[in-house]
């Protein structure tokens, strides 16, 4: 089951949802692989704190021109649609950062003067965070094309009941690279004008892929209905609402996994798992796995003493939903 956690706007809580969901599913006995596809700014490792056991470079092939044998015929420059090769009167130049690595130039060179050499663009790290299998891709600083690193990261993901892909923000090619080929999309949003505007765009992308999807509203305000209205119009289900609470922001700022440290979130994520079971394509989620997860969630909700922090009614979290209070600034003056 490939589940991708995406959003149009950045900073809405993709990583919070992805890591918390991974932890929740693993706690209920499912095998889970967390795959960080936000290769420009990967953050999952900051919260899952994995042991990385393997690191593999990601390379793209770029042309190398043998100036000795080059005829300066210019065919390579003519065929390159990214202007990554220039044929000057005395030499042929390659601009590696513009090259997409399509291999077109190598193919057309009449004298075989162009070979392809690997050029590093990123790394893929593989490891484990407790029972969770961890994979994370990182784009090298200065490199512009993240899709090859995202592809390599996805390919490195081990088989699991649930493969949770943490997508990059936006609606352009990196986001698409993470979304395409997945089984279900969870879009995380926040109920602000920016959040909802970008949710609409993200829904359009998901529609072009014809993938089933649902929405998680983060920083939900009690009584705010815009997100619900939008989802009703777009006919997508709201899978969960995570309340706007200073406690969550503070725990996050300390690098904590909020599902483990903030009261009430465990129940919200248990419910999210149950909703996902109703929503995800049946053929991707074997009956036995479904039953196992349902039974585990039911068992844990009947024995709230099994772990910290016990909470009340899983369907309402009044303590968290209280209006956000202004924090006293910790310092009056700014840094000098």
């Amino acid at each position, binding site marked *: 089951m490939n589940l991708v956690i995406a959003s149009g706007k*950045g900073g809405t809580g993709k990583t919070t949802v992805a890591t918390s969901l991974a932890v929740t599913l693993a706690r209920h006995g499912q095998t889970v692989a967390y795959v960080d596809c936000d290769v420009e700014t990967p953050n999952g490792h900051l919260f899952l704190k994995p042991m990385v056991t393997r690191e593999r470079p990601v390379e793209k092939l770029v042309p190398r021109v043998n100036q000795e044998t080059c005829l300066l015929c210019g065919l390579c420059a003519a065929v390159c649609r990214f202007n990554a090769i220039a044929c000057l009167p005395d030499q042929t130049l390659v601009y590696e950062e513009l090259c997409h690595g399509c291999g077109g130039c190598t193919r057309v060179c009449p004298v075989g003067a162009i070979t392809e050499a690997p050029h590093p663009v990123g790394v893929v790290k593989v490891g484990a965070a407790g029972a969770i299998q961890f994979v994370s891709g990182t784009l090298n600083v200065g490199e512009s094309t993240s899709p090859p690193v995202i592809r390599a990261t996805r390919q490195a993901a081990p088989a699991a009941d649930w493969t949770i892909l943490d997508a990059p923000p936006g609606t*352009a*090619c990196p986001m698409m690279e993470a979304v395409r080929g997945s089984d279900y999309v969870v879009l995380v949003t926040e109920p602000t*004008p920016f959040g909802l505007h970008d949710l609409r765009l993200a829904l359009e992308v998901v529609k072009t892929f014809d993938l089933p999807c649902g929405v998680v509203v983060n920083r939900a305000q009690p009584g705010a209905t815009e997100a619900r209205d939008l989802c009703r119009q777009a006919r997508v289900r709201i899978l969960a609402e995570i309340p706007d609470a200073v406690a969550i922001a503070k725990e996050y700022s300390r690098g904590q996994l909020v599902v483990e440290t903030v009261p009430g979130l465990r129940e919200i994520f248990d419910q999210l798992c149950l909703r996902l079971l109703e929503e995800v394509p049946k053929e991707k989620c074997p009956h036995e796995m479904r039953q196992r997860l349902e039974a585990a969630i039911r068992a844990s909700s009947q024995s709230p003493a099994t772990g910290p922090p016990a909470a009340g009614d899983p369907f309402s979290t009044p303590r968290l939903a209280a209006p956000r209070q202004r924090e006293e600034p910790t310092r009056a003056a700014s840094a000098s």
Partner: protein
Amino acid sequence: MSDAAFICELVVMSGKGGTGKTSVTASLAVLAGSAVLADCDVDASNLPLVLDPREQRRETFTGGVRARIRREDCTACGQCKALCRFDAIFFDGPGHGRLPHTYRVDSAACEGCGVCHDVCPEHAIDLEPTEGGEWFVSETRFGPLLHARLRPGHGNSGRLVTLVRDQARQVAEAAGRRLILVDGPPGIGCPVIASLTGATRVLAVTEPTPSGEHDLERLLALARHFSIPAWVCVNKHDLNADMTLQIERRAAALGATVTERIPYDPAVTAAQRRGRPVVDVDHGPAAAAIRKLWERVRPFLADPPGPQLDTGRPAG
């Protein structure tokens, strides 16, 4: 470059998304009063939502080409698939009288390199220009705004960013405006690099969280790579005082200049709900901090940065 021709291009960036780039940029637009504004977050453009733009001009962005296989001419030889480096060709296209299946291009994966078009023995593959989105010139109370909408799911965001910046510069030159305020995209990849190359200065807005710190480090490394001086502003600093200090120390160590902090203030989101920049409607703690931030950076925007990275602090 002569002093008269100098136009400062200040790019507001963050690495991590959702740290407050757009809210800060919109407020700086109010305080600057006579800047040209450019929203380079072309796949999730938000600056227009708080500047009430009146559209003056709308243009189509042609975002390169995509391959398309004419199924009636495809003989399913498979050469295109064998040579495609982008996994963009699939053997599940509709068949015709002679074949049960043909090859098909996944236009979302196609990068438009044209290799398949060049090798196809039947010349059955067309390269079609794609409409990659639109870009706009709008008028706002605070100056002209250049913005764009990448067609959702489309690539080539870097080229659209470059186009928006070029147009912003033309508008600034024509109107004699000396400052371009750029609302940058998140991340450190293609659209960010397109927003940074040749810019004058970076203002990095971050938040006191491990992700904020981690992503800021990557952004500052990129700014250094392009030799662009960077200011760092920690937004919502009171969320975690220790982390704020840690980030500011780290930023200074990486060669950036630490500037004003902005406190967490619900007035920022409230202003966004009203579709206005926060300094335009509020005098609370966040608005006050952004005003101070503007006063601190303003003296440095009139001239090109010197050969050494200056401190970003007014003398005295």
